[in-house]
């Protein structure tokens, strides 16, 4: 039986695991090279930073503080990597569908949808980006987001691991992400 409490506990476990996996806890990790994206590398960073914002909104909405903290850290790192091209906070408004929070099952399904998008695009990014440090950042985010996805699957009563992940094209993933977005002051005419 799936309960909201159980799901949140699962999120908290993922939070703890992810913090250890992503945040710089040793001097060696602190010396990781800074991403300097080349040409279209920026596309994966851009998609991911917007999708991670969606994911951050999701974890805040369900009250999973640990996971939200990690997602905020993802957003911070991606924003730094994008530099001057990074979208400002008020450029996009995330509009998660209200009905997705009507039942625990629907809530978990939305989380899985977001994390699956991230995992697919990050995997695609790892195979396509030119700059090594950008690729490393995407790989680290992939490891962490795959943990979140596994935890959500577990909470949904599914096997946490479902074989090999498949890379997702930005075009297809973008169509899915756009359904969750409002650009600020987007003309309506």
């Amino acid at each position, binding site marked *: 039986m799936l309960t909201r409490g159980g799901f949140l506990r699962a999120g908290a476990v993922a939070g703890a695991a992810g913090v250890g996996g992503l945040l710089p806890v040793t001097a060696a990790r602190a010396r990781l090279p800074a991403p300097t994206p080349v040409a279209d590398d920026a*596309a994966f960073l851009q998609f991911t930073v917007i999708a991670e914002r969606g994911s951050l909104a999701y974890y805040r909405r369900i009250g999973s503080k640990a996971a939200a903290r990690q997602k905020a850290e993802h957003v911070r790192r991606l924003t730094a990597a994008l530099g001057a*091209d990074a979208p400002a906070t008020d450029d996009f408004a995330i509009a998660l569908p209200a009905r997705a929070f009507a039942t625990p099952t629907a809530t978990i399904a939305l989380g899985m949808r977001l994390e699956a998008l991230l995992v697919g695009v990050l995997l695609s990014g790892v195979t396509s980006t030119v700059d090594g440090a950008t690729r490393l950042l995407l790989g680290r985010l992939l490891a962490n987001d795959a943990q979140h996805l596994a935890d959500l699957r577990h909470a949904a009563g599914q096997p946490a691991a479902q074989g090999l992940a498949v890379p997702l094209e930005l075009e297809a993933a973008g169509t899915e992400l756009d359904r969750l977005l409002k650009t600020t002051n*987007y003309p309506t005419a």
Partner: protein
Amino acid sequence: MRRLIPLLATLAVVAAVPAAAHAGPTVYAAASLRDAFPALDGSATYSFAGSNTLQTQIERGAPADVFASASPAEAQALFHEGRCSRPVTFATNILVVLVPRDNPGGIRSVYSLRGGGKRLAIGTAGVPIGNYTRLLLRRLGLSSVLTSNIVSQEKDVASVSAKVALGSADAGFVYHTDALATRGRTREIRVPKWAQPAVRYQLCAVKRDGADTSAAQAFIRKVTSTAGRRVLARSGFGLPPRG
């Protein structure tokens, strides 16, 4: 002398005309505002062009009273040079792909441009529409379309939309408002929201000897008023929250 009276009267009227014509401010505005601003204030004298060109003209002493740019960069630069008041954001926009009505290039989405070989019109680097287009393409991972297609670079967004409307280009990157202005001859294709650059229009009163500051301030108040915002919205612009 009696004969001279009508002539003097005529001269007096002629002399009065320029005074009446100068009742409004001289407004230097981004080309994408060419339809909205005259609808908003018919008494102003307008000069429409690429924002970067207008910025340079103002820096060289052009007789502008108001400057409205299609990105914050130009207005902010003039502000930091002490050449205009603190800019205010008054409108927003989005980028779209514009194609001729009969769409001879068979372009269905921005990703269709990956195929290459199309005639593509974009703004030059430096003009806001050119900068926004390049940022959009980087964000979509489509920078290569600038080399795989036959690209013409235009000095402002009006030139890009004219080129598409005339059928001299298979596609062009313009603002949504330009697509509305040429509908009938063109079709717009929306681009993904997640990659949209934030297009912000800013407005300021130019500081120079002889500037009509009160007319400039009145124009700015008119643009940012409820009525002004209604005109901008009717033209397809987005509106920032009221400051």
